């Protein structure tokens, strides 16, 4: 069966759900192999084995993280040279897409980003994605080279393979320093909020300019629902919440089960990031706000009244 190579970057000591999803897709399309960057913990190796990974490739050097993208793409191309895969899968982060982009040129292979479903097997994969801010769903194939796909989170339910494998390991030589690459000279970690990550959250509660800087009611409802906190660009530009919380064209594109929009007018750039949510609830003082055009349930009202009442009500009904 054809190998499907999955790039996994610094998984730490636990394989993230998004990576488990990639392995699940790879197993459906062929035999999964992994090109890993970063340390390989026993726990991660065990998970890879459960997902049917038959081969793990690792770079001979440790400094791939010191550069922006190019050496990682060179490593992945070298791993692909060994593995001879029928397709390559990566995550859909900025970096995943950029590595895919450079890899595509190196291999002479077409790249499809923002993939939400994969069907077929081997090199005959069809990738589904949504374009024009969610206006269309298209199915794409790769006509030259092998499919290189970057896949969004929540595309499949992670499911381990029938029988665990014993992955073979191969070290790949890569000359990081000779790649045309910018150097990463400083990394500033941001403190984790403790809430779910926006990208793969099942529920998101978002606030906009209407919060007037007070995200208290947004956070309280989010915590009651176990949700991630999002925001409009007006709110992030004002510095009320960090930029990584921005939903929309230039923030995150999300497709949760439930998106609660509070104090957000629903400009086209905001809609572009959230209109593929399964259920949309909007709370806004102004009945003419465009957000109501796409809300499954809308409340014309003050978020400072409506949200706390809803939070309290959920708490009551639960106890």
């Amino acid at each position, binding site marked *: 069966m054809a190998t499907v190579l999955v790039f996994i970057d610094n998984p730490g000591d636990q394989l993230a759900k998004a990576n488990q999803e990639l392995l699940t897709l790879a197993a459906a399309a062929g035999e999964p192999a992994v090109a890993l960057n970063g340390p390989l913990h026993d726990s991660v190796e065990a998970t890879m084995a459960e997902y049917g990974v038959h081969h793990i490739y690792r770079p001979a050097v440790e400094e791939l993280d010191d550069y922006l993208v190019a050496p990682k793409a060179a490593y992945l191309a070298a791993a692909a040279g060994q593995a001879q895969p029928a397709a390559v899968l990566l995550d859909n982060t900025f970096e995943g897409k950029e590595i895919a982009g450079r890899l*595509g040129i190196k291999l002479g292979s077409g790249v499809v980003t923002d993939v939400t479903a994969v069907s077929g097997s081997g090199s005959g994969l069809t990738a589904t994605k949504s374009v024009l*801010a969610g206006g269309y769903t*298209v199915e794409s194939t790769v006509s030259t080279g092998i499919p290189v796909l970057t896949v969004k989170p929540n595309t499949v339910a992670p499911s381990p393979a029938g029988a665990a494998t014993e992955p073979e390991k191969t070290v790949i030589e890569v000359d990081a320093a000779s790649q045309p690459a910018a150097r990463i000279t400083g990394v*500033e970690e*941001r403190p984790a909020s403790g809430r779910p990550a926006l990208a793969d959250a099942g529920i998101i509660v978002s606030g906009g300019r209407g919060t007037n800087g007070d995200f208290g009611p947004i956070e309280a409802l989010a915590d009651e629902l176990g949700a991630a906190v999002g925001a409009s660009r007006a709110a992030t530009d004002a510095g009320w919440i960090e930029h*990584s919380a921005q939903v929309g064209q230039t923030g995150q594109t999300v497709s949760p089960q439930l998106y609660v929009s509070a104090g957000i007018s629903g400009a086209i750039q905001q809609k572009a990031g959230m209109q593929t949510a399964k259920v949309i609830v909007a709370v806004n003082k102004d009945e003419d706000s465009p957000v109501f055009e796409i809300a*499954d349930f809308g409340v014309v009202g003050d978020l400072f009244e409506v949200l706390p009442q*809803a939070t309290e009500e959920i708490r009551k009904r639960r106890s």
Partner: protein
Amino acid sequence: MENKALKIVVLIKHVPDAEFDRHLTGPSHTVDRSTSILSELDEYPLEAALQLVEAHGGAKKAGHQVIAVTMGPDQASAAVKKALQIGAHEGVHLSDEALAGSDAAATSLALAAVVKQIGDVDLVMAGMASTDGETSLVPAQLAERLQLPQVTFASELELQDEGGTYRIRARRDGDTHSDTIESALPAVVSVTDQINEPRYPNFKGIMAAKKKPLTTFSLADIGLETADVGFDGSWTRVESAAARPPRSHGTIITDEGDAGKQLVDFLEQQKLV
């Protein structure tokens, strides 16, 4: 030592205006470009380029040059003209019927050839994504084709004068961390909408733009053939496209004191709590 004058190419795309309904048309499902504008996300790299020039002696005094480049159909020259009005010094329009339907691989091939044709370019600047293609692949693929470092998704950018040459320093914000990135020139840079407030064209700019050079290149001018670009030169193919049914709204209520409770009723019905 005196620094060499900077030659900056800014890549701008002519895209369908998102304020109107946008459509895919034809057997190959390409974007209908009838109501197009300069991509708003490409105003940011243009502004960033102009600010770099201003921060390092200005165009007139130091001889720096900002060249706005687009690849697209005839009408796309409107985007270049707008860039000239905003402040770019020269414009280049790669226009050829054969370019229609180019994916990121073909687009990066053509744009790389334009950059080589212009020659001696220190910085290629791009937006974080085109508002129609939205792949963010072009800057990375262009960097790969030109064998240059990429400094992408910059939310802050400066050129440090190192006596005789410049060094790029940028900040790139990820979901969990922010990185400081440094690179020598030449390089490909892309910038986010966090980096600046793009300026508008003013009357003086609009008048001045009329006298600025706008060169049109055909494929032959940049040494490419029809089969290298467009549908033939693309490595991906759109097999089918389905318009998402427009989202319609459900129940809209006005708060009369119990809307929070009604909201929870709705969530319960939907089995979301």
